[in-house]
Structure formats: C-alpha cells, structure tokens
C-alpha cells in the first residue's frame, strides 16, 4: 500500500514537473517577446534626427499632428518591422535546416542558400533587366521589378537546396562534408556574382554590391508585406508539423516508425525555408549568422523541443537582427552601416564563444 502511495506521488510529481517546465519555457517566450518590444520601441529613437520617446509615442498614437510622422513611420518603423520579419524568417529557416539536415552547422548562410539567392538577384538585375536602379533621396538603390528578382533568387537558392539535399541523401556523407559543400557552393555563387558584375554597368554593380552587404535600409512597406507573407505561410506549416521535427531528431528510421513521411517532410521543409531566405535576400541582401546563431541560443534556453524552438528561433532572430541594426545605426553615427556587417562580426564571435565555452554544442 505504501508503495502504491509513493508511486501515485511520483505520478503526480512527474506531471507537475513537466507542466512546470512547460510553464518556464513559455516564460522564456514571453520574456523574448517583451525584450523585442522594448528594443523595437528604442529602435524608433535611433537615427540622425534626435526625437524623444515622448514625441515618438505621440507620433505613433496621433500621427496626423506630428512633424516627425515621415521619419518615424516611413523610415524607422518600416526599417524595424523589416528587421523583425527578416530576422524571424532567417531564424526559422535556420532551425528547420538544422533539423532536416540533422546538422547543427546548417543555416541559409552556411549551406550556400543565401549566396545562391544573391547570385539569382544579381542575375535578374544584370542579365534579365530587373535592375534599372535609381537613387532615392536616401541614396539607396532599389529595384523596379522585385518579382523577377525574387523568382530568380528563389530559383538559384533552390539549386543550392537541391544540391545539398542530394548530397545529404548519400549514405556515407558526413555532417562536415555538407558544410564543406556549402562553402564550395558559396564560393561558386560568389564567383558567379563577381563575373556578372564585371560585365555590368556602374548602376548594376552598385545594386549587386548592395546585396552582398545586406541592408535594412532597403526595407519598405511593400517589401515588408511580401516578406511577411513569404515568412508566415511556411511558418504556419512548420508549426503544424512540429512534432515531426521532434521525431526526426532521433534519426530517419525512428521518425518513420512514428509515422513521419521523412522524405516528404525534408523536401517541403527545405523548399519552404529556402523560399523565406530567397525573398529576404532578394529584398535586403545577404544577412549572415542570424539563421545559425538564433536557433542555437534558443536550444540552450529551451532544449530540443521544436514546439518551442520554431517560434522562439523566430523571436530570437528578430531580436538579434533588430539589435544588430540598432548597432549598425549607432556605432559610426551619422554613418549607417549595412546590418550584414554587424551580424557577421557579432555572429562570428558569438559562434566561437558557443563552440569553445559551451560543451555539447
């Protein structure tokens, strides 16, 4: 009888502990969302014109009366929303790629998807004529035909995906080999981009170089809407099949024995994540390391449960990209650096830190 009681206690405890752990993980998400809101509000203050928080708030609430309406809404707000969407997209694409390729080093940047997309964008601008660029008041180069650029970026990022998927389906391929193949692909597309630039006009070269920089200054409402759509549709799919990602972590056979259609999941996931990356890259350029770092930071905080990892990688990606953009705007004020430079610098150091000081990474 005593044993039965103690068993019952254990039962009660294990369920309670589990729900308690879930509660803690939810708190991490809330904290992330709260932090993101804070830096989002702060990001509206960052810029060459000094605007107080009070004025920002009044502009957001009563926009008609404010003299800063254009600066706040059309420039800073747009830019920060762009950062949130792009960061979320890159974070989610990274966490999904790491899962389906079963490779902790996989990310849009490390397997050549970003570079493929950038080459596609350059190809559309220079060869297909989508790059009749013009200089705006803010000295930013924009593209007249974003559809063509996006489609071209998507097609070339798909080439990387198909190559990596074929490679990962080989039985004796190692995780390191996939990353090395990604390095080779990046180099290949990098060389291709340079080749195109060599024969391009000054404007076209400036446009393509702009891509390699990855800059949130290019964000506008139109781009943001398309990026949001390109992010949301795959994101909803990823959330629906999140248990399949949990299963696939234990290996293909394990997942299959749990009823997961592994091959279909892998192909759809890679296609959708490369769609996200292609759209973001074709609008904003190559933004490195967010897709690699955001999922790893969240893994440290909430473990390998994809119910949390997927949305939290999105939040962490948004947070990191927005923070990087604030740094990019502040560090050499009034010069605004392309955010890709900041993410690559910070990402490299953060990655090395995780590698050296966090065992099991």
């Amino acid at each position: 009888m005593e044993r039965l009681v103690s068993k019952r206690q254990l039962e009660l405890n294990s369920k309670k502990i589990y729900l308690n752990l879930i509660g803690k993980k939810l708190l991490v998400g809330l904290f992330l969302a709260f932090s993101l809101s804070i830096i989002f509000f702060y990001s509206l203050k960052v810029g060459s014109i000094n605007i107080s928080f009070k004025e920002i708030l009044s502009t957001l609430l009563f926009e008609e009366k404010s003299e800063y309406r254009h600066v706040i809404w059309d420039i800073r707000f747009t830019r920060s929303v762009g950062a949130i969407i792009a960061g979320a997209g890159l974070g989610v694409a990274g966490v999904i790629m790491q899962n389906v390729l079963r490779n902790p080093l996989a990310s849009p940047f490390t397997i050549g998807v970003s570079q493929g997309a950038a080459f596609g964008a350059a190809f559309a601008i220079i060869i297909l004529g989508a790059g009749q660029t013009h200089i705006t008041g803010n000295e930013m180069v924009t593209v007249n035909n974003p559809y063509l650029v996006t489609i071209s970026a998507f097609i070339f990022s798909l080439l990387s995906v198909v190559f990596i998927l074929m490679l990962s389906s080989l039985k004796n391929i190692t995780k390191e080999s996939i990353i090395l193949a990604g390095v080779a692909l990046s180099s290949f597309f990098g060389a291709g981009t340079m080749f195109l630039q060599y024969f391009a006009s000054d404007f076209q070269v400036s446009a393509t170089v702009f891509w390699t920089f990855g800059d949130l200054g290019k964000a506008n409402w139109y781009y943001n809407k398309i990026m949001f759509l390109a992010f949301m549709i795959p994101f909803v799919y990823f959330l629906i099949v999140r248990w399949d990602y949990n299963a696939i972590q234990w290996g293909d056979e394990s997942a299959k024995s749990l009823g997961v259609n592994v091959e279909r999941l892998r192909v759809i996931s890679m296609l959708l994540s490369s769609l996200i990356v292609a759209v973001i890259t074709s609008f904003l350029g190559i933004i490195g390391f967010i897709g690699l770092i955001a999922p790893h930071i969240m893994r440290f905080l909430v473990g390998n449960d994809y119910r949390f990892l997927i949305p939290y990688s999105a939040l962490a990606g948004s947070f990191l990209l927005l923070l990087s953009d604030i740094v990019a705007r502040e560090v050499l004020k009034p010069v605004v650096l392309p955010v890709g430079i900041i993410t690559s610098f910070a990402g490299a150091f953060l990655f090395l830190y995780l590698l050296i000081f966090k065992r099991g990474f």
Partner: protein
Amino acid sequence: MLKVERINFSYKDRNVLEEISFEASKGDIVSILGVNGSGKTTLLKIICGILKPKNGNVYLDGRLLTELTKRDVAKNIAYMQQRVDGISSTVFDTVLLGRRPHINFEVSKKDLDKVEEILTMLNLSEIAFRNTHELSGGELQKVFIARALAQEPKVLLLDEPISHLDIKNQMEMMTLIRRITKKMNLTTLLVIHDISMAIRFADKFLFLKDGQVHVYGNKNTITSDVIKNVYLIDATIENVKGISIVLPILKEDKL
C-alpha cells in the same frame, strides 16, 4: 494476429529475404534468430513499414498494412531500433514523443496520463527528468521501450534489445519484455543473438538462413541440428535446473 505472407526483399541485386511467411498471435514473443546479415533487421523494418518489400504482404488482424496511413501503422506497430543517435532530451519528453501518432496538434491530458502510466509501469518515474545523455545503457533501452509502448501498439518490434547490456540488465530487460507482452497482450518480435536467452523468454522461434525461413515453431523446434544448420557450429542443448542452455562446441573442447 500478425500475418507475414511471402515477403521478398532485395538490396539492388542481392536477395535479402525470400518468401518469408509466418504468423504470430497476441501475447506471443517471437525470437528472430540467425547469423549476422541474414535479414533479421530488414524483416522488422518491412513489418513496420520503414522498408517496402519487393512483394508480399503484412496483415494485422486481417487488415493489409499497406492500406493504412503511416500514422495508423505507427498506432499499431512500434519499432525499437538497434542503435539510436540520441539527442539531448529528458526521459519524459522522449517517451512523450511516442505519442506522436496520436497527437493532432498539441498534447492532450490523455497523452500525459499515458506517459505517466508507462513511466510508472517501467519504474522510470524517478528518472523522468534526467537527460537521456546521462543514462546507462540499460536505462536508455528501457526508455526506448517506454517510448514504443507510448504508441499503444498491438505489435512491438525490438531489434537486439539486450545486445549492449550486462547480464543483470539483460535478465531484467527480457523479464520486462515478457511481462509487458503478456500484460498488454502484445505480439512481440525480437531480434536476438543469445539463443539461451531466447529459449528462456520467448514463445516462438524464427530461424532465418540465407534470407529464408529455416525453421519456425515453438521450443521443441530448437535442436542441435537446427543450430548447426543455421550457425554452422556444433552445439548441445543442456538442461540446468530446468533451464535450457545452448552450449556451442569447438573441436578442441573436451566435453
């Protein structure tokens, strides 16, 4: 009732399984025996749908498995593979994953109750929140069996469940497998190399040789001749205190 009918399977040009047929009832433990590479694991993978046979069928309670969705197959048949490259996860979460075929979008109270019930049944409650990386081989095998049971299967397929365990853990594991098979009225198929252990705990024995069924039947079918034919080694079957033990013999042994 599990019915395997004329299964054939080949890897490229090499025939691995030929015309494999047998039946197993509820509550039966079937040991699958044979030399390395005789197709034992392949047979398990075909039964649970991981591999597709060239031809042949698997029926569960009269229903053809290929007519079921992958999810429905997983609700009926659980497979524990030989080696798993684990990830960092708690025992509770690992067992909860076994509920995947039953979970539509989010975990229900029933799922959590089932996990608790199984953890208690297998005496895993105390380590429910330990990381799987910290577990011993015996504990980890138990966790994987718990995950398989969380699927609420009718058929349990275990690929070498005691291969990496010490003798105490082997005995505990086999006792556990027998207990849950009888208690839950499962059909359990297990690939095993230790014939003595198989005789002690299983009800039926399927010997594979060159991809074909050499012998299928109860304890009485295991003879020195069968062992010699399958493993190409002389052996005697001794009875020690009512327990049958298979003793391989080398020429230099003086028995």
